[in-house]
């Protein structure tokens, strides 16, 4: 479904040149969920932004369905690939009602049947019709993220790019959104690329993942390997350790309990 070959993203020129992503390659099959893990500055979000055209591709190729994506992206691309952003407080237009936000993609692509499709999209993400005419400030963080997911799903894309979709949310809300994403993927046969700094979240949603650091690939591994603590690189192991919580001495028995 999605092929990333030797992707490079470079900002600036000369002495100010910054290589945000250096030679990253991976393949995501149809219906698969693929994770990109790393700390800030690892270039994981830049990979997503480069795929959808928000960051420039300086080298390498991005193929969707076996075809190289055009620059600038065309409407057909946006019907295939959609994105959900990290901060639901920033990704909804503050002066637009949910209804307006959701009718926008339909209007852009000249789709008919807006009424029923908006109602259906709201149902899909677990929001009732009572949410339709609210403004973002009348919604909680989790509800906003649901609206953002509904917006991304309206055009019936095949690939969903998820940029830290739960990191701005409370733990209990995160669980709800993760369940929703899991369910949507199953029901709609979606392909996911999930970017997150949280190993547990990535392992929960994805089967395979790429660990990145300083714009480079550290290793490609599987969620199963993470769960059994079989990482090839020291860096991944240190990420796993850090995700277990704070420990005064490295091996504290109960630290494995909560996450």
């Amino acid at each position, binding site marked *: 479904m999605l092929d990333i070959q030797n992707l490079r993203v470079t900002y600036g020129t000369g002495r100010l040149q910054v290589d945000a992503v250096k030679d990253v390659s991976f393949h995501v099959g149809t219906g698969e969920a693929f994770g990109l893990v790393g700390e800030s500055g690892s270039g994981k979000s830049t990979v997503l932004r480069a795929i959808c055209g928000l960051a420039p591709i300086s080298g390498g190729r991005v193929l969707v369905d076996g075809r190289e994506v055009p620059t600038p992206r065309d409407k057909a691309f946006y019907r295939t690939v*959609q994105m959900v*952003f990290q901060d639901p407080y920033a990704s909804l237009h*503050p002066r*637009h009602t949910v*209804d307006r936000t959701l009718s*926008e993609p339909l209007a*852009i692509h000249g789709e008919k049947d807006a009424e029923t499709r908006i109602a259906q999209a709201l149902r899909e993400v677990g929001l009732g019709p*009572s949410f339709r*005419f609210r403004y973002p400030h009348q919604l909680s963080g989790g509800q906003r993220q649901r609206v953002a997911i509904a917006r991304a799903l309206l055009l019936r894309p095949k690939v969903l790019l998820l940029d830290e979709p739960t990191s701005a949310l409370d733990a209990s809300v995160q669980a709800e959104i993760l369940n929703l994403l899991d369910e949507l993927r199953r029901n709609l046969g979606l392909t996911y690329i999930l970017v997150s700094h949280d190993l547990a979240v990535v392992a929960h949603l994805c089967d395979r993942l790429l660990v990145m650091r300083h714009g480079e690939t550290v290793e490609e591994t599987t969620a199963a390997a993470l769960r059994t603590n079989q990482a090839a690189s020291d860096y991944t192991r240190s990420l796993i350790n850090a995700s277990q919580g704070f420990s005064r001495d490295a091996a504290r028995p109960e630290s494995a309990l909560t996450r």
Partner: protein
Amino acid sequence: MSSAASLPQPAGLRAWLLSPEPTSRWQARLGRAYLGWRTFTKNPLAVFGLGIVLLLLLVALFANFLAPYSPVTGGDLRTARLLPPSAAHWFGTDDQARDIYSRVIYGSRITLWVVLLVSVIATPIGLLIGTVSGYLGGWVDTVLMRLTDIFLAFPRLVLALAFVAALGPGIENAIIAIAITSWPPYARIARAETLMIRNSDFIAAVKLQGASTPRIIFGHVVPLCVSSLIVRVTLDMAGIILTAAGLGFLGLGAQPPMPEWGAMVATGRNYLIDQWWVAAMPGLAIFVVSLGFNLLGDGLRDVLDPKAAK
């Protein structure tokens, strides 16, 4: 915002307006407007300002009925010249034996006309240039902003004078001159706002839905810039009225015998010591209306400032 909204609301209507679950587009919009109105009315000075502006509107509308005399043809030049305020002539009469009260009332039409035309011409120009320049960036931004700088570099009144000198004196030309010189600050404000909005996630999101650039600018960027521009334009109204009056005073705006307030002050200048009312009455009108717009602008800022609104 109609004045009817200030009347006590039945509980049912208020509940409908403030419903957290509006059932239609209109209910959502009206609810929002109602909340804004409530914020606005918290500020008594702003309501006072709105009152003045509404009064100006009504006076201009009903000038025919309110004015007891004709604004242009005076009374008997031998007996009715420069009469002090009295029951017959509330504001006195001027050197042409015209009733100043009637002239001030008719003058409100000219003032309103100026204010209306300037805002209708200058605001869209500023908004368009500012948002396009801020959103597109690059050479478009450079060209448009240098153009703005050129207009900004001229002193407003001097540039207006030059325009009027070139186009010929008259109220329409004065308005055009003021409009042309007042858009650059609006363009700057709109551009600054756009630069902040341009990189936000909700713009990226709509871009990823395949929206065209004009669609993003007009549907998503402009609505967020409009509110701060409205505030700024309202606050500038006082300045515009003063500029118009200034042009009138210099004889380059409204031409006699039009009852333009600035021109009226200019004629009163000759009698300032002995017949103070000739200059003071239109001056007072300018003062009150300017104050009204300023207070209104302050109140609107509280309501519309995106940083204050959650």
